[in-house]
């Protein structure tokens, strides 16, 4: 099981990085999502104790949990990471949509206004909905 998860995480990392190297904004977004999943799987695997059926609880009449028990920490970490990546992704989607609206392209190579100042007429008037 650990091996299978590890391979899946590795595959997701590779696919995510590949997508991030693309020029299209949407594909970069997909890449970010895949990378997020890859990290969550990695965290899930990192407890080193993927034990089914043994919760980290102290059974009645005992003073310590079973010697081999599931590690609850990675799950807490994943939960936090999922919530954060949800918020971040929501923001990224809105930003990339806005970028498409303002620049009229989803090709990163066309976004050069930060390096070469754009001619004045290219700058669109401020959109009241621009700020998130």
């Amino acid at each position, binding site marked *: 099981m650990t091996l299978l998860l590890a391979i899946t995480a590795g595959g997701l990392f590779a696919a995510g990085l590949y997508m991030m190297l693309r020029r299209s904004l949407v594909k970069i977004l997909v890449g*970010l999502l895949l990378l997020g999943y890859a990290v969550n799987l990695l965290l899930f*695997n990192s*407890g080193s104790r993927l034990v089914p059926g043994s919760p980290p609880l102290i059974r009645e009449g005992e003073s310590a949990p079973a010697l081999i028990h599931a590690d609850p*920490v*990675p799950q807490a970490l994943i939960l936090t990471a999922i919530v954060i990546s949800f918020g971040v992704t929501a923001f990224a989607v809105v*930003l990339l949509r806005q970028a498409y609206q*303002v620049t009229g392209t989803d090709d990163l190579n066309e*976004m050069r206004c930060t390096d070469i100042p*754009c001619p004045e007429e290219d700058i669109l008037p401020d959109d009241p909905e621009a*700020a998130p």
Partner: protein
Amino acid sequence: MIVLPILAPLLFAIVSLVGWSKPAYQRVVGIVGAVALNGVTLSVFAQVRAGGIQVAQVGNWPAPFGITLAVDLFGAVMLQVSALVALTVAIFSLSGIDDSRVKFGFYPLFFVLLMGVNGAFTTGDLFNLYVWFEVMLMASFVLIALGGERAQIEGAVKYVILNLLSSTLFLSAIGLLYNLTGTLNMADLALRMPEVQPAGEVTLIAVLFLIAFGIKSAIFPLFFWLPASYHTPPVVITALFSGLLTKVGVFALTRVFTLLFITDFAITQPILLVLAGLTMVVGVLGAAVQTDFRRLLSFHIISQIGYLLMGLGLGSAGALAGVVFFMVHVILAKTALFLVAGLVERLQGSFDLKKLGGLASSRPWLALIFLIPALSLAGLPPLSGFFAKLVLVQAGLELRSFLVTGAALGVSLLTFYSMTKVWNEVFWKDRKSGMPALRRAPVSMWVAVISLAAISLLAGLAAGPLVDVSLAAGIQLADPAAYISAVMGGIGGAP
């Protein structure tokens, strides 16, 4: 007590949210909040200076199990300097940020950003550090895109994508480290690291951390997002970012490489030093060809990060003291320069060096104010940059790292060249006939710029006490035993 630097910005973020569409109210809250934050950080600093490392266990869970907050002297210095930056930026933004941006939440975001920054300086837990980084990043994402001009949006796209990639790497490094050690408390990690097997995997994780924090602090091969995005938002936001964000990255690097990855220092030291040298040189060469005030200063941010990395790579107590001192110096000088750029733009309506000129005769005081942080950045005595570089170079010579020390000195010269270029173009050059008439700048901008330049000047003139503090902080950083015992020894103690 040390929770307050996190709680105070949160409180004022909420207070400023109450008056969502009332810019005047929010501006007042901004000033009041920044002043209050200074009070809080000053008392934390006094406490740490007098009583050593301060520790709080959140929820009273003992050390390796709960989340630990720990402020050592380095953290306290960082808290105080960023509070000062926040105050001057709040004063400058009284008229430096337009009403529409305020109505879209500039001040709540400003305080959330400060909360994230202070959290990162305060936490003693690696995963908690990740969370604070995300808090800080989310606020900075919105701030950089606030207003939605084309260049801003394009800059924001690059900034967001690369910083998210860095967060992903950071999180994977945390996962792998937890897998090896079974803990995320930094002091506990420091205790367990020497015995971890296999050692090769530790080096791998160290490199992952180096890349993740390297992107955030804009070191040599990973800095490209910074000059592509920092000059796009209003200059107040750039000044805030330049004073705080990359420095948090360096702070995290320092924490990780002085506390966790010290056993294989022989491997990491040459990597850090080579990266430091290249960061300095490439940053300053990039600045040499720029003709936009803000882009030029953005490249100088990168070059100054190289000095901080150099101190970290040298690793002796003296060098780490240099890092602390340089951090104070560069945060103050850099923010002051960006605010001066903002003031110049307000007066003459441009950031383009070619469209500026003649300010030395029409605004001689502004020229003088520019010279303080500019010459300080170049490292001329008796300004703070001189002493900061002196401490670093001294440490470099003691450790016989002649190459990186030579690079540091050469880059100082190039920085000086770059600053004289700005001086010539903006202040010394005659006014051209076609230039628009000078406008008036609001008093609040002058107050902000003058006070920050004065603080920067003071950091040089009163270098003695500051060097003492830096040395004490450097000794604390070089020997993690005090940090570990402060965090782990306080088991069961009241927070």
